[in-house]
């Protein structure tokens, strides 16, 4: 069980050269909340995620993760990447240990922690495989195991399922929800998929493009746990996806 922390984004603006990416973005993510950012291309959702991760410094405003004002990457956060970002020269075990190595965890402890994390995402037995030998879905499971291994308070996920086929994605979404309900870490999730946003999130924030601003916030009060019931077949689910589509359509 982890203690999760809230995130506050306060009046954040960011410009790349002459291109404004974010303009006066403010939002709050509760401790243990599952929040999704969605919006058309160019709405700055990945940039916003990277400011929380401390990878992109803000021009104005500030980002608070728990009590810490973000000025660079911190120990609370870990991240899952769209292209998996696995070390191709390292085994699954070594990839999952990577964050622990950087954080100075002793060898025996990190090996055990990584093995637990690998088992958690359902990859037990693949410790000695190399990324190239795994399917996309399995590679992203390695990415998730690596992110969870450092025991994060905040899990940032940048379109993690974008390059995974539909069937694998649905199974993975259910596993993610199950893991999240066990760990209760704060999740900020970026996606293009409306169904995915509604299915996973407590709240969905719609960003408008060029520059990115908070356009609208959609509460998703579908009962949990969603992974065991047939939420996708419910009328309530369809209505929320449709609401989200109506918001997004106007932004195109």
């Amino acid at each position, binding site marked *: 069980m982890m203690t999760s922390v809230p995130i506050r984004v306060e009046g954040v603006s960011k410009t790349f050269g002459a291109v404004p990416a974010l303009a006066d973005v403010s939002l709050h993510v509760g401790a243990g909340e599952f929040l999704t950012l969605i919006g058309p291309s160019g709405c700055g959702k990945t940039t916003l995620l990277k400011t929380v991760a*401390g990878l992109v410094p803000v021009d104005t405003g500030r980002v608070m993760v728990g009590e810490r004002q973000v000025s660079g990457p911190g120990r609370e956060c870990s991240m899952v990447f769209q292209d998996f*970002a696995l070390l191709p*020269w*390292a085994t699954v075990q070594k990839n999952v240990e*990577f964050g622990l190595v950087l954080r100075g965890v002793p060898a025996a402890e990190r090996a055990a922690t990584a093995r637990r994390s690998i088992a958690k995402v359902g990859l037990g037995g693949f410790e000695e495989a190399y990324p190239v030998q795994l399917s996309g879905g399995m590679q992203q499971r390695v990415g998730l195991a690596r992110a969870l291994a450092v025991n994060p308070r905040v899990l940032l996920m940048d379109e993690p399922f974008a390059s995974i086929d539909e069937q694998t994605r649905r199974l993975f979404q259910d596993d993610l929800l199950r893991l999240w309900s066990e760990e209760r870490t704060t999740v900020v999730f970026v996606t293009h998929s409306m169904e995915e946003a509604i299915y996973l999130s407590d709240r969905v924030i719609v960003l408008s493009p060029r520059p990115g601003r908070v356009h609208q916030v959609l509460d998703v009060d579908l009962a949990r746990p969603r992974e065991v019931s047939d939420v996708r077949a419910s009328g309530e689910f369809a209505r929320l996806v449709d609401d989200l589509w109506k918001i997004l359509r106007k932004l195109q």
Partner: protein
Amino acid sequence: MNSAISRPESGLGGWGLAALAGLALFWEALGRLDVSMFVPPLSRIAVAWWALVQDGTLLRAATSSLHSLIRGFVPAAVLGVALGLAMGRFATVRHLLDGWVNALMSAPLSALVPVLIALFGIRDTVVAATVFVFSFFVIVVNTMTGVRGTDRSLVDMARVFGAGEAALFGRIYLPSALPAVLLGLRLGVVQAVKGMVVGEMLISLVGLGERLIYYGNTFLINELYAVIVSVLAIALLVSQLAGMLDRALLRWR
């Protein structure tokens, strides 16, 4: 877990050997037809080669040549990789040196040998220096390209997990660049053999290159070919060794 992953072949496969054998037969036949004194039968070259082995000429020349090769290539590899890493990672270094390195990589470097002779005198050090300039730049450029080709998201990933500059370098940039570095070393060692022969031919003092000039000038054609074959064998051998290093270090591919 034993999925077969195809890798580019870097050695002589069965087909390569078959082609070599075919060429040898063709050469022998052509030699026996006595078309030209410059095409002696392969068998006579083999006899000359064996005689040069037995009287120690070839061994003496090859030892001197390999000595220069190592003296030139090892510093070229170490300094070339180091400079390539620096140029790949730091834009200032790259901007300062990129033009020079690219110009010198494609320049006809044999033109530099008279300068090296002026610098070092007519000594075997010139050969080592020629080996160095022939192999250095291709190693620099490949290493730099490898570092610059590092996946941005791996860098982001490492930073999220707390990597500082040293960890980024050792755990991301260096291993990412390794395939390109090894390619640079493979190309570099082949260039080094060229530099070795060119240097020795120009100073005409020691090594296999000197023998080439000598047998060429005295029209000892069989011996000339025997030395050429030996040089080719050395070139093949070093590139095979580099290929083995490549396969040993890049098993994950």
